[in-house]
């Protein structure tokens, strides 16, 4: 895997998402309250564009009539068929063993480190005042 700088952090503020192409692969990057997640933009079921999915919580139930909601914002529903995926792991909720979206590590790197460090960033306008979103593909 190589690290790719994909955007300044300021361009993907918390609560937003961005569809990027990295090494020819469409990757949806989400900013959940400052934490970044990357998923292949293709639902493993029929190929729906995950970047346009609805971010929701996990609804479980102890008994019929009870709706227990947790993990707000961490479950991504495919915009087509509504299959639910864990944004942290790409794992399908209903079929965890067999269905998983390819998840990509996404991190934030210091602007200064980018300039000095190992990251390939030469064609990205680098600003030392800003931090960058980095995807490993």
């Amino acid at each position, binding site marked *: 895997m190589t690290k790719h700088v994909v955007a300044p952090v300021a361009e993907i503020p918390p609560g937003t998402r961005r569809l990027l192409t990295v090494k020819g692969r469409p990757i949806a990057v989400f900013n959940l309250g400052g934490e970044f997640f990357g998923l292949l933009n293709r639902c493993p079921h029929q190929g729906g564009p995950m970047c346009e999915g609805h971010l929701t919580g996990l*609804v479980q*139930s102890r*008994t*019929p009539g009870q709706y*227990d909601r947790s993990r707000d914002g961490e479950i991504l529903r495919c915009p087509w068929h*509504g299959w*639910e995926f864990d944004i942290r792991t790409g794992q399908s909720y209903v079929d965890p063993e067999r269905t998983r979206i390819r998840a990509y590590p996404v991190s934030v790197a210091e602007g200064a480190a980018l300039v000095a460090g190992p990251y390939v960033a030469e064609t990205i306008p680098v600003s030392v005042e800003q931090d960058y979103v980095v995807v490993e593909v």
Partner: protein
Amino acid sequence: MTVPPPGGIDCDIHPAIPSIDVLLPYLSAHWREQVVTRGLDELNSIAYPDNSPLTARPDWRPAQGRPGATLAQVQAQALDAFGTSLAICNCLYGVQVLFSEDLAAAIARAVNDWIAKEWLDRDPRLRASIVVPSQSTELAVEEIERLAGDQRFVQVLLLAMGDTPLGRRHHWPIYAAAERHGLAVGIHAGGSYHNPPTPVGWPGTHTEDYVNQAQAFQSQLTSLITEGVFSRYPALKVVLLESGFTWLPAHLWRLTKYWRGLRMEIPWVDRSPAEIVRSNVRLTIQPVDAPEGDALNRLIDHMQSDELLLFSTDFPHWQFDGAEALPDGLDATLVRRIMIDNPRATYARLLEPVA
């Protein structure tokens, strides 16, 4: 079709009430008078018109009276003819069609007491389902509690088409009572006819009515699963009686597909519908709605379990001729399961000694 090996457990036979007169001794003075003075007709629903070819096999029609209405007839035609070791009586009498809950409860009590005295007391091979006034959950539960001590009653009997889908929560005390007492819940073809027997209105023929019974079972299975009956009552066994079974794989493919996308609506369903069916739902084998041979075996393969089917003759309904109560080409292990193992695993009470 082939002849089944002897010793089987027949999970669906229909002793008939010869006439409402036989119930009079089992009714209280008030209800007895109501039946007589109001000129109550025989409570035979339109599900099985008396003379319809399906209602009774020609060679099972007596010279006089209703098919399956005497013990001697049932012994000879339904039990001895197949070497049956045990048979479950599902009495189809239009208790569920009545609109008065109290009258329905009175008739249901009479039917059950009549079955116990005139049938179960007189042949040790017979077991029965508890007929309940499903119009009232409360009265249905009362009837279950009244009879639960008698181990010869192995199941609660409901019909495929009632006023509301069977998964709806107001029916749940029935399932709680059944689970508590180790009774299965059997759902048989037929209905209250309070709603049209198709989702698109009343059909113009009896043929459609009968064919459409299978769709009612499909809807009930959807309802029981999506409402969470098996999440709430995990030990409950539901048996679909005279439902046909060849529709099951296609139905589960569709239901499971929608569950994957709509699980959030019914979060208590935390296993796939196909898995739930494999653990909690069984189907009797007659009628076999499939061509024999390769297609049927592929279809059984699609069911992905050899535990789902229970032997039944559906006596006296005309589903097959002679003693050929099983489709051709089933392997011997599967036959043994259908005839004996699966019924025993489904009906806990069949394993109990009876007094």
